[in-house]
């Protein structure tokens, strides 16, 4: 009952956010079922306007843009989600270790993170990709590593605050191990800010992957992804054909949705009462 009650209290903007996220998730899961054509099937002439047959027209090779949008959701969102998960697991693990153990380990980790954060993210990613070449696993690992630095900073700071509380002290005197402390005492209490951060990091990672794909260095064709679709169809815009705006708008749409929910969670986490 309490759950239903708290659902009712969700503000309007956050509801829109949830709706947008659910819509995107549903589309990603159901892409092969609902799309009218195959992901890379050529079905019509190049850059056709929208019609009965092709709802959003066709792209630079004559593929159905609507189909590519659905598959693009699947590819782009799943890769961004996996990257964020990896970044979070790494960031939180090291952040909590640094906070609970302290000492030289904390110093070492924090200095490494300082250096990584002093380096502009996009430039770092570009340099690594120039050396090892572009592939999805490389993309995921590089972006997760770069992004985990921010997660590390936050989770270390949050864990520092929780670590000095009496219940942690009590558990420690009980003889619990560090790993147990991190999982059962610190993690549950650090949840609200971390959940909000997950949303923010997802947005960042999602935009970052889209940008790299737009630069031609992310997810490689013929796999459909939103950033790459903008790049492939960019030439059309000078003829007044708005095809590249569809995937770009889809990226903006999902990011706005996540941000709306994050704002609401941040509001709750800050402990402010309406």
């Amino acid at each position, binding site marked *: 009952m309490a759950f239903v009650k708290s659902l009712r209290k969700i503000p309007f903007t956050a509801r829109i956010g949830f709706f947008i996220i659910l819509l995107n998730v549903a589309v990603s899961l159901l892409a092969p079922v609902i799309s009218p054509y195959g992901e890379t099937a050529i079905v019509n002439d190049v850059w056709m306007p929208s019609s009965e047959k092709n709802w959003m027209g066709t792209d630079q090779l004559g593929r159905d843009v609507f189909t590519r949008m659905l598959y693009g959701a699947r590819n782009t969102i799943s890769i961004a989600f996996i990257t964020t998960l990896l970044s979070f697991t790494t960031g939180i693990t090291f952040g909590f270790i640094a906070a609970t153990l302290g000492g030289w380990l904390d110093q070492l980790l924090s200095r490494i993170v300082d250096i990584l954060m002093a*380096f502009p993210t996009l430039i770092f990613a570009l340099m690594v990709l120039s050396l090892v070449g572009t592939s999805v696993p490389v993309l995921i690992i590089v972006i997760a590593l770069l992004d985990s630095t921010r997660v590390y900073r936050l989770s270390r700071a949050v864990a520092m605050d929780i670590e000095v509380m009496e219940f942690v002290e009590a558990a420690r005197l009980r003889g619990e191990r560090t790993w147990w402390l991190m999982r059962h005492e610190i993690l549950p209490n650090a949840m609200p800010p971390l959940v909000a951060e997950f949303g923010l990091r997802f947005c960042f990672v999602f935009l970052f992957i889209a940008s790299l794909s737009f*630069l031609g260095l992310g997810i490689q064709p013929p796999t459909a992804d939103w950033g790459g679709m903008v790049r492939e169809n960019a030439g059309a815009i000078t003829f007044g054909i708005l095809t590249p705006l569809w995937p770009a708008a889809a990226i903006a749409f999902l990011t706005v949705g996540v941000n709306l929910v994050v704002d609401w969670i941040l509001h709750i986490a800050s402990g402010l009462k309406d």
Partner: protein
Amino acid sequence: MKDIAIMVGKRFGLGLVTIVVISVLIFMGVEALPGDVATAILGQSATPETVAAFRKELKLDLPAHVRYFTWLKGFFKGDMGNSLANGRPVAGLIGWRFANTIFLASTAAAIAVPLAIILGIIAALYRESWFDKTISIGTLSAISFPEFFIAYILIALFAVKYQFFPSLAELNNQMPFWKKIYTILLPSLTLTFIVTAHMMRQTRAAIINILASPFIEMAQLKGLKKLRVIVLHAFPNALSPVINVVALNLAYLVVGVVIVEVVFVYPGLGQLLVDSVSKRDIPVVQASGLIFAIVYVMLNLLADVLSIISNPRLRNPR
């Protein structure tokens, strides 16, 4: 005063260390490649002779630390080696492109900084008003929109539908100044839109923070006029965070140009970097990456130093 000098000195030291570490990382990147760089770049089918010649070209036959110092010395003397793609000196490729990037970024900054500060202050003063709400919706969308989305909307509107501006920012050195500004107006507007949102949001937060402090309440309770409270009490204290915000966003701007340059096919350093990454032209990537990193670290350093200097509490210790 002495404390400030020490603090500033420390930051400079830290900045210098960061740049050195970054340069080592950039250099080491090539070393860390699995297998041999030459074969990795030339491909498995390359003949041993080509590989040997290529190794000599990259000076791979010398030990790593020797190459690092030669590379670093060359970098600061303006000799950055030759491009692998076309054999031309890297310094020549980078020179005017870097100037173009700085030109684009500073044009955007010249519009964005005053705009963001004024809007941020107004939004903070009239909190929860319709103006503030419009601004927060605007910032939310600017943060959520990818740069290329904003850029293509601007192109579709102002270059294709109403043909006010060129859709490609083709710049050359013969152009008179105002013609140059006209050419790069759409890219700089794109950058302005993105940076203004961040700056405005942070300026607003900084000012609201100051307005909530006890000394402002004190001034209000003394019955001072609102304008006097803002100009003489709040502003000097808000200056430090605002300057910090501006410098941080300038750093963001210099790196944020990469995508905007690609959209508008602008002959800048970011465009060169992206091209060289796809061609795997390592010397160009290393040199332009290091330049970007140095500018970024310097601007962050500037943000730190300015916020130390402009903080009244640090300037007048008891």
